[in-house]
């Protein structure tokens, strides 16, 4: 009997089950949960997925194990690749990414899924905390079929009424046509994945809504850790756990180093 799934394995499994065969997924580097989610989908039910990890496109359906690599530029990742692309072409040519799935991290996220990687403060030229910057998230999230917000911390300082700055548009000021009105062709954020819960968006208002809570987490706890009023349905299910087959793939092939169990 194997050890029960960790929260990170639950999060990765949620991601995996939301991705279908044939889709293209873009994963950055040093994002163990997102990477595991994408690879689990690929190995479990997505033999025709196009999996982009950093600059490599890989297909591992018949490959027993893929090791995690930490750095974007680790050339040895080519061992698992069938394509290796340069940076500006990956970012530039959004048409080839219009059907792909992407992930966005954040320092702050507001009730409509707009997010901030620039920094904290009022004056952009005197930030209290200089953030990492938007990397490629602004452009990618404008164009991709859908994206997921992903954070490692669920607290009122991350989930805020209003972001100090918006580096990636979610549902702007709200409403199902918010992105169309801005002329953004991409489908916007579908879910927000946190260590406490999965959040989605109300179909009409596009305000954030509690979708499920992870095992051991209460609805009140999520509410208290969210700095804006979350839509909470009358019943909130538990985030479903990985089954034995998914757990075996995660632990045996995707994450033998145990980053999700640490």
């Amino acid at each position, binding site marked *: 009997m194997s050890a029960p799934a960790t929260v990170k394995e639950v999060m990765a499994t949620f991601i995996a089950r939301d991705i279908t065969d044939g889709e293209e997924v873009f994963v950055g580097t040093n994002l163990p949960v997102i990477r595991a989610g994408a690879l689990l989908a690929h190995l479990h039910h997505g033999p025709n997925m196009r999996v982009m990890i950093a600059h490599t496109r890989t297909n591992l359906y018949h490959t027993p194990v893929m090791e995690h690599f930490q750095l974007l530029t680790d*050339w*040895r990742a080519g061992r698992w690749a069938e394509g290796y692309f340069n*940076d500006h072409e990956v*970012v530039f040519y959004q048409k080839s990414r219009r059907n792909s799935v992407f992930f966005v991290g954040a320092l702050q996220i507001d009730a409509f899924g707009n997010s901030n990687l*620039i920094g904290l403060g009022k004056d952009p030229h005197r930030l209290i905390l200089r953030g*990492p910057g938007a990397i490629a998230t*602004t452009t990618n999230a404008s164009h991709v079929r859908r994206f997921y917000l992903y954070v490692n911390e669920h607290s009122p300082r991350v989930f805020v009424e209003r972001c100090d700055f918006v*580096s990636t548009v979610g549902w702007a000021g709200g409403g199902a046509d918010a992105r169309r009105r801005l*002329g953004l062709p991409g489908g916007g954020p579908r879910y927000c994945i946190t260590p406490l819960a999965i959040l989605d968006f109300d179909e009409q208002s596009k305000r954030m809504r509690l979708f499920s809570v992870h095992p051991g987490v209460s609805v009140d706890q999520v509410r208290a850790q969210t700095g804006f009023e979350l839509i909470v349905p009358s019943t909130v299910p538990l985030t479903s756990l990985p089954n034995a087959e998914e757990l075996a793939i995660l632990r045996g092939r995707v994450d033998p180093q145990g980053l999700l169990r640490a």
Partner: protein
Amino acid sequence: MHMGDHSADVLNGVTERRSVVLDESALDDWFRDGMSIALGGLATACHAMVAVRHIVRRRLKNLTVIGSAVGGLDVDLLIAAGCVRKVICPYVGAEALASIGPFYRAAAEHGEINVWECDEGQYYTGLQAAGQMLPFLPCRGGVGTSFPEINPDLKPFTDPVRGETLLAVPAIEPDVAVLHAAFADGYGNVQFVGTGYADRLLWRAATRTIVQVERIVSNEEIRKTPERTALLASAVLRAPYGAHPFSSPGFYLEDRAHIAELVEAGRRFARSGDRQPIEAYLTRYVDTAPTHVDYLEAVGLRRLFSLDEYTR
């Protein structure tokens, strides 16, 4: 046979193809205060550190540094040495080894440098505009965000063709691009191991380009695989281990211990304003190591040999 004046001009006495190989000492002629310098590589790989250390050693001032799209600690080192006025790139750091460059963060938070806020899409759009000799190119990424308000150079406009709101990104025009690659011949034909990240775009955007290489090879060697020639350098500098402490695909990995030393010096400064560790670093690796060979000796052969990609 009659020869017109025009032909006489053409026959100017040059009968040999000119080598573009630079001696390290000639780097002096390439950089001056206030220049706009694009630095190649990406994140923890392939930054042109011989040239960067040269700039630091001279303590050039008021540079506009166009870091790579995932700018590395090459930018941080230039900021640490007080060389930088403005940074144009979407990120400065070393990912898992330093989520953000400590000197960059401190200087940005204290308003000591001007950060031209952008994402990778906007950054590449500006370089592309420069390469096409256009005043700007449009970009969609950033519509609906705070970018135009933080960086007023990114101007929302109505596209005259389809009526969409887009951002006009002005050309980002480096005076010089400074790159690190695997091979070049003496005439400036450069070949990478790996993709070369976005170095070709920096070359297209820049007025001139210096490329340091792991190895200078013969023109015959380049001609075996002409399709791999990525760009034509204005100048080539022989620089084995020239990306150290960063990696160079096909040759060596990043030197994590060395990077940690630099990052720790930055964190000490950011925490307590203590410049002693960074000054010690600069003394040891830059100021008392006036050439690349001196630098490699300061790092030590044993360390350099330990950075092999596949033997450990």
